[in-house]
């Protein structure tokens, strides 16, 4: 038989109601009766207080494929997962699932605090759809994977939240699905455990499981899924290559931000080299100057500008403001412009960087909320250096020798390798 494992979603629409679902028995009983009678308001008409949580979403995932779904909060990700897992039904469209479907959603949801770890393993295994003695056979593996063996006979109410999540994931990880839904849960546990989880998911895909991975963490989606769907306001904004999707997502988030920035306008922004000539590709360790002009439409009493650099996944590699650096702020009246020139040494690993201009008003209390807005100001690139890895450029000098008894091999002389660009 052809391996037709997978999910197809074709034009999925799902509506919800705002506010209390039913004010009174008078609304509710007729609505329920219509449901029971099979004439429910399932057809795709929007009622007065309804809104579409998902609109016309289509995709397909086949055996051995992993699809990432990213989007801001409220984009419809969880709704989509619930539709896929069968908890909710779509109002329009067709959804087809071929194969044993299992979901890694809220893995500790089935835990009962009064039961011990061992009892919960059996209970949760059953809730996740394992059969008969499947759990018993896998108990050792599950316990091993979770790393909480000494506490197996302790009620889980005495567990830390991390232990609970690890045990929950370990049970879930030992399901044998054909189709797997994953929601965010990889953010549980420490780094080592996360790596374990990632490896596990990759091995599942390799075994021919169709995976749908929902997250708003770009980095983990990029690690696991070659294809990604960007979901926003219930619509599929983009579906395709993950790198493309990331770009799409970042610009989407940014667009949402600039809409609120009416009180400040970024009039000019330049990326320059040490001699103030425009430049966008820098060697690691080179000096870069950023020049910005911002006009204010309202007044700010302790206004400060700052810069931040981020990698494409959105993780910030560096940021500072004039206030944090030396306490300098300016008093900005409506209509006035503020200028900033920043000098940075780009001790960065190779890659693309997004430069953000941060606008702060430190009159704001508490100070942590001082940021008024940030502009996505520009891009700069540092070509990759094959000799180095990591996220920063530390201008390394390495000296390697074999130690001999007469001490002649001791690394006390200065050895210049291929590094040392600043000195060179």
């Amino acid at each position, binding site marked *: 038989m052809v391996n037709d494992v997978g999910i197809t979603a074709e034009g999925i629409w799902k509506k919800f109601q705002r506010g209390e679902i039913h004010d009174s028995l008078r609304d509710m009983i007729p609505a329920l009766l219509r449901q029971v009678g*099979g004439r429910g308001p399932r057809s795709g008409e929007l009622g007065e207080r309804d809104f579409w949580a998902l609109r016309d979403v289509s995709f397909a995932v086949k055996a051995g494929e992993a699809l990432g779904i990213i989007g801001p909060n409220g984009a419809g990700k969880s709704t989509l997962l619930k539709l896929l897992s069968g*908890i909710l039904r779509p109002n329009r469209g067709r959804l087809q699932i071929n194969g044993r479907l299992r979901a890694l959603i809220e893995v500790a949801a089935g835990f009962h605090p009064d039961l011990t770890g061992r009892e919960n393993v059996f209970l949760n295994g059953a809730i996740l759809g394992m059969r008969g003695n499947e759990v018993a056979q896998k108990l050792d593996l599950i316990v091993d994977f979770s790393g909480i063996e000494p506490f197996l006979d302790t009620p889980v109410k005495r567990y830390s939240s991390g232990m609970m999540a690890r045990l929950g994931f370990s049970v879930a990880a030992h399901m044998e699905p054909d189709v797997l839904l994953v929601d965010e849960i990889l953010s549980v546990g420490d780094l080592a455990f996360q790596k374990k989880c990632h490896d596990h998911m990759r091995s599942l895909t390799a075994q021919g499981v169709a995976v749908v991975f929902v997250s708003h963490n770009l980095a983990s989606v990029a690690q696991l899924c070659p294809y990604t769907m960007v979901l926003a306001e219930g619509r599929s904004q983009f579906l395709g290559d993950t790198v493309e999707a990331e770009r799409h997502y970042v610009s989407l988030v940014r667009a949402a931000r600039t809409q609120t920035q009416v009180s400040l306008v970024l009039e000019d922004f330049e990326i320059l080299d040490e001699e103030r000539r425009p430049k966008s590709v820098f060697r690691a360790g080179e000096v870069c100057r950023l020049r910005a002009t911002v006009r204010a439409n309202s007044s700010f009493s302790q206004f400060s500008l700052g810069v931040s650099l981020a990698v494409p996944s959105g993780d910030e590699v560096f940021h500072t403001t004039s206030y944090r650096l030396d306490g300098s702020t300016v008093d900005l009246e409506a209509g006035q412009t503020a200028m900033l020139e920043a000098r940075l040494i780009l001790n960065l690993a190779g890659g693309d960087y997004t430069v953000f201009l941060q606008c702060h008003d430190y009159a704001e209390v508490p100070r942590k909320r001082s940021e008024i807005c940030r502009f996505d100001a520009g891009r700069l690139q540092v070509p990759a250096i094959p000799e180095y890895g990591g996220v920063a450029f530390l201008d390394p000098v390495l000296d390697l020798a074999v130690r001999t008894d007469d001490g002649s091999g001791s690394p006390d002389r200065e050895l210049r390798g291929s590094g040392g660009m600043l000195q060179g």
Partner: protein
Amino acid sequence: MARNLPIPAPGVLSDEWTIVTPRQLARAGPSARDRKTYVAETGPAGRRSHPLSAIAELVGDLREYRYLLYQLTLRDIKLRYKQAVMGFVWAIFMPLLIVGSGVLVRYAMAYLSGEQFDPAIISGLALKSIPWAFFVGSIQFASGALVGNINLVTKIYFPREVLPISATLAQAFDSAIGALALVVVLPFLGIGLSAASLWALPLTLCLALFTVGTALLVACANLFFRDVKYIVRVLLTFGIFFTPVFFEPAMFGSIGTQLMMLNPLAPILEGIRLAVVEGHDLLRSLVDPRGVVVWSPWYLAYAGGWALGIAAVGVALFHRLEFLFAEYI
């Protein structure tokens, strides 16, 4: 790797993907159970094709998820006996209280009518106390079964019927302990088992069906209306006065008996008492010296009809509304 994610166009879909209808599912056997197609518009592939199919689907689901049912029942049983003062005494606590109250009521009645209190009625009380305690306990636990597991209902898919049914099964475990205790005690109350006692078995089955059906309805209703739990609690508290637990329907005279026996639980409880205590064959009518019809074989049909009816309605309604639970809870 310039592979694009395959998004089948609507017309192309059927070439790559098999559309499986429930009827095909049934034919293809268990492996095909793992195929699910949801089509929003009502159509041949929709789940709501036939009302009776709800029951067939429930049986299939329960078979598939029997391990979950077992684990949830085990959980409910364990939780009752963990960190608990009473432990297994709990299983006979409620029946004992019922028997105690019954003795008080009957003693007062005997005193007022100037008769001698007959200790033989204790066996009848004990016999009825266990099914009644089973019904009350099951419905009480089931009413909170969906709402109390809100985490599971909104997050994880499994047939939701499992939750109220496991609550009923956990209560059945308690009642089974009580019944065992009763079987040990009965000979000391002067009751010998006869062939007629076997009638208790089909009547117990009726009780089980009736209880499961009611449990499904109550659990479902409490999900949509949170006050159902309180209404149910009040009804169950006073229900003992409208159900022949403390007394026999025949005490109310001819018409009173008929009215009393309208309560679906009445023929079940009274039938069990007549069969076990009096050794009466339930296929024959029983008329007492005053001419009151204490038992008619039609009561068997009546009880059975209610049991099947409530079970069918409960399953069908629950099944239809199941996928709204996560939205309305």
